[in-house]
């Protein structure tokens, strides 16, 4: 310190401040802050000037004006007189629908692929490897277009539909399946189903408590199965099948009635799932390999059966390794669903970021809405996966 005071008067004030670490960090931050502020201020000023020159202004009023375009897949009521806001909501629902369906299918396929990659069977192993390498090294947009092209060009026209027992029909206009029409009594069945789930959650905890204190084991799996699946099924038939199935039928050039699953949805769903499954498969494989083989050996030395070794020893430990990369795969799938626009599936980007944007000319507002929606969805997914990850994390001393 004494040397600093000796030389202090020889140096000017600025260099003294610059040579002090703490002062320097404050100066750097102030400069950075001003630079960032200036940059955004400059852009904001440009935006205001440009919008003014075009006479556009900045407002979200257009959201309440009629959208006047049709959407081919809507889960909620929508017609061309509905406002842009409703079109946006339809888009959000469509995005979430394909994301959730895709995540479920991709997880199932991914776990199967991961296990097949670890199989001793040489042919199966190689087949899974070839599949994974092919899928991972080709852009997902190409997959989506390819599956869509296959459905539209290769599947038969409605008159020559592939017939599943006269109930469901697969054509190049989509999959036509029976549509359930719920009668009032059905809600009893549904109530029993929910009650079954609640009972199972309670019963699992109860069974674990009993096992911890007395060592007695209940057949938890079978009782849960009976409560969740068995009871609703039984009540369904006792109540006299309170669902009426509306079967699609051919009329003119297309099918009428029934539940239509459109080719765009099928293509996007399948392509995203098949693509993401390859990545999940590799994550699952890495996760299982990360569990030391000694764990399995120790379990069998204790006389634990093979199935219980898997479910109680290997999988819980593997999941800890699998969950973080799985989260980013789910995020990727959701974000990749925005490629829907290439095949005309009406998701967020295609509704508010596509047609609404072009019709109203409000690029700025529309794009801000789209970006915010994706940010919120991404944050929700990573938050829920972080919560799950924390729950299954190893409890350390």
């Amino acid at each position, binding site marked *: 310190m004494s040397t600093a005071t000796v030389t202090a008067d020889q140096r000017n004030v600025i260099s003294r401040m610059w040579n002090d670490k703490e002062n320097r960090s404050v100066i750097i931050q102030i400069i950075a802050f001003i630079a960032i502020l200036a940059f955004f201020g400059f852009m904001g000023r440009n935006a205001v000037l440009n919008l003014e020159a075009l006479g556009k202004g900045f407002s979200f009023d257009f959201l309440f004006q009629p959208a006047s375009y049709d959407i081919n897949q809507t889960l909620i009521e929508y017609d061309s007189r509905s406002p842009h806001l409703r079109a946006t909501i339809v888009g959000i629902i469509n995005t979430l629908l394909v994301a959730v369906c895709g995540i479920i299918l991709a997880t199932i396929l991914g776990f199967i692929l991961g296990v097949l990659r670890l199989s001793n069977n040489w042919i199966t192993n190689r087949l899974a490897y070839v599949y994974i390498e092919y899928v991972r090294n080709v852009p997902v947009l190409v997959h989506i277009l390819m599956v869509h092209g296959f459905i539209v060009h290769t599947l038969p026209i409605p008159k020559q539909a592939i017939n599943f027992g006269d109930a469901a029909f697969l054509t190049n206009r989509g999959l036509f399946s029976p549509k359930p029409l719920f009668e009032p009594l059905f809600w009893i069945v549904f109530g029993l189903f929910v009650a079954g789930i609640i009972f199972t959650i309670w019963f699992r905890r109860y069974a674990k408590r009993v096992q911890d204190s007395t060592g007695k084991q209940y057949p938890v799996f079978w009782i849960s199965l009976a409560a969740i699946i068995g009871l609703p099924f039984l009540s369904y038939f006792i109540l006299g099948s309170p669902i009426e199935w509306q079967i699609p039928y051919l009329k003119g050039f297309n099918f009428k009635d029934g539940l239509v699953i459109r080719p765009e949805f099928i293509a996007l769903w399948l392509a995203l799932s098949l693509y993401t499954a390859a990545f999940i498969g590799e994550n699952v494989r890495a996760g299982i390999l990360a569990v030391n083989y000694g764990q399995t050996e120790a379990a069998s030395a204790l006389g634990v059966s093979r199935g219980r070794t898997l479910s109680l020893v290997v999988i819980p430990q593997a999941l800890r390794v699998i969950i973080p990369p799985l989260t980013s795969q789910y995020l990727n799938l959701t974000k990749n669903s925005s490629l829907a626009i290439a095949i005309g599936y009406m998701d967020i980007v295609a509704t508010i*970021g596509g047609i609404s944007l072009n019709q109203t000319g409000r690029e700025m507002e529309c794009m801000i809405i789209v970006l915010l929606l994706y940010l919120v969805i991404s944050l929700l997914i990573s938050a829920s996966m972080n919560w799950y990850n924390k729950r299954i994390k190893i409890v350390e001393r």
Partner: protein
Amino acid sequence: MTDQMKTKQYVPGEHPDMPPPAGISGPVAWVKNNLLSSPLNVVLTVISLWALYKIVPGSLEWMFFDAAYTGKDRNECLAKAGGACWAFVGERFELFTYGFYPAEERWRVNLAFILLPIALIPILWDKCPFRKIGIWFAIAYPFIAGWLLLGGFGLESVPTDKFGGFMLTLVIGVTGITFSLPIGILLALGRMSNLPIIRMFSVCFIEFIRGVPLITLLFVASTMLSYFLPPGTSFDLLLRVLIMVTLFASAYMAEVIRGGLQAIPKGQTEAADSMGLKYWQSMRLIVLPQALKISIPGIVNTFIGLYKDSVLVIVIGLLDPLGIGRASVATTEWGGLSTEIYVFVAIFFFISCFAMSRYSLYLERKLETSHKR
């Protein structure tokens, strides 16, 4: 007892080499161990063979044996063969390679294509002769290629809306890769920095970019970005797209590099500090070389992702190979082709991405040995 009596006694060291017992090695044993070891395994083998039987002969027939390789249009193909029609690849090869680049200037694109491997070899191969000069050339390559393709400074300038095909993929890939690495390093350092404002800015930037799909950013580039420029100015769509792609890749790059930075023990920075190194010196000489080395596999994976993502530009109307292919389907000559185009583009991407991922695996293995103690 009788067996033991029969075995011949050998003097130690003179035992002749015997073949292994039957059933332990050889093709039959291999099949037994790998394909038929348990009932489940037998079932898997049967299912796999059935799947192979269902897929392979049909695909080969369609792709090669029953395919038409030459012809002027689709009808000519259909007359020749019932399978794939590859004639469009030959007929439209120039479009697929150069886009709409003027014919008399195509030597410049060719030169850029030829210089690319010359720039890559010194980076990829660590025992390359004259590696130092080579790496300087590799750093200069993006700028040389940019000059060749764009023109100016003595060359006739070519507007970027003439770019297309594989050349466009190359432009997006090389630009993204060259600029996303340094920006990614800066963002990663910013995120790890002690200065709260810089850290906050880096975190916000990275998380924002990673939270939205690339396609929305491309839409921002094509529709909204011009609002943020001073009134009266505008710049090229391709340039806007390149900026977005680079920023997108650099956010992912930053996270990969941050993983590498976090793996470096704190003692390294402290040691550098105690030697009197300044922040940038300690980063440049001590921390980054180690951090980048362990994050190389992740960096290559980000490159592969960026390269694959380059096809998304078709959504905003740029014509990369996929875009050219789709435009071809819309013409009268080649109308009705669909699978062929996608298979062709898929093969192109598969070859280049598979090569990159193999290289990344090779690097991973090489680096792993050097880290073993």
